[in-house]
């Protein structure tokens, strides 16, 4: 039998998960797209201006794209 305290913590867990999934595109932009872009820049041997590190470019593009997808609800 589930008592009210357990139901409350289940509800809190559901709310936390909903929050995480809502901002998942932004997290995906930082956590995945940024390092993918950095590795692609390195593999392609692209020279970056102003001594920018590939990961810096990756983070700028990945976080911006992820934020856009979070706000708009679509990656395009």
């Amino acid at each position, binding site marked *: 039998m589930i008592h009210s305290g357990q139901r409350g913590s289940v509800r809190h867990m559901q709310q936390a998960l909903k929050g995480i999934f809502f901002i*998942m595109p932004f997290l995906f932009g930082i956590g*995945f797209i940024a*390092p*993918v872009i950095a590795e692609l820049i390195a593999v392609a041997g692209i020279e970056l201006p102003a001594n920018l590190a590939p990961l810096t470019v990756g983070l700028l593009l990945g976080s911006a794209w992820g934020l856009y*997808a979070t706000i*708009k*609800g*679509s*990656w395009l």
Partner: protein
Amino acid sequence: MTIEAAAAGPAPDLGFAAPALGAPARHRAPAAADDPEERARLLRQEREVVAKYLGGARWIYPTFALGGFALWVSLFPLAMAGIVPLWLGCLVSTVIATGGYVTSHEAMHSNIARKGEKLRWLNELTGQVSTIPILFPFSMARIMHLQHHYHCNDPQRDPDFPDSAPSAWHALIKTWLNRQPRYAGSIHHYKRILADIDSPASRRAQRDTAMLQLGAMIFFFAMAWSGYALVVAAIWWLPRHIGLSYIRFYLSWAPHHPRDQQGRYLNTRVFKSKLGHVLSMGMQYHIVHHLYPNIPHHRLKAAYYDMRSTLAARGVDVSPL
């Protein structure tokens, strides 16, 4: 039970409740439409064919599922060590991700082993591992697929209805649009249907989906920030997206287009695939699966040709094949 079903005699065990017979067909033959005795005769013929194709080499599905999953897992260290090039890993993973739906699909219909049978655990294991590469837990895949069978082409209750599109190109684009975070596509349709079902199984399916996707994201981020971003992109992320689009196109849009009918002999069409039998994953004969889901996937083609004249008499347009 309808008159013709009673007259046709006992039905083979189909694994789920067959819908009422006698619905109007797209190109119904007059005799079958109006004469219960004729419909009973046709049903007897169908069942005689079905009895020949139930069972068979069911071991192939667990073999492919477990072998494919082991190969898929091994692709990560092999690609990380540079033993397998990324393009090859991506290709192999895409085949496993896409084909995994077929093995999982057999498990959804309990075609490997039914509840209570000795090898039931193998049926469930086959289903569980098959859809991990596409990040679609078996509990969710099964509940949604069975809803699709129960309510095929119902705009509100068929979970696959968002795949409907006026042309093949529209359908391909829609497979991608439907996966966007807040697009009113598959995800939201699923959520609404699950809320309507509101059972322990539907709640478990939602929990499994959240856990699998969260776990996968943690894996993606950990791999990516450890210097293997392209490995995880090539072995998991890209194959998943290609696989999902392929599955949605060939397993949902193509056999059900134009989704404007819901009758037993109307909700699925026979079509000729430009990519042939294997690359279209046997979907050309999908009508046989919808009529008799416990015929194993690899026997659908033979069952279709054996049943073809009966289907034609039922009014099904069998002219493409």
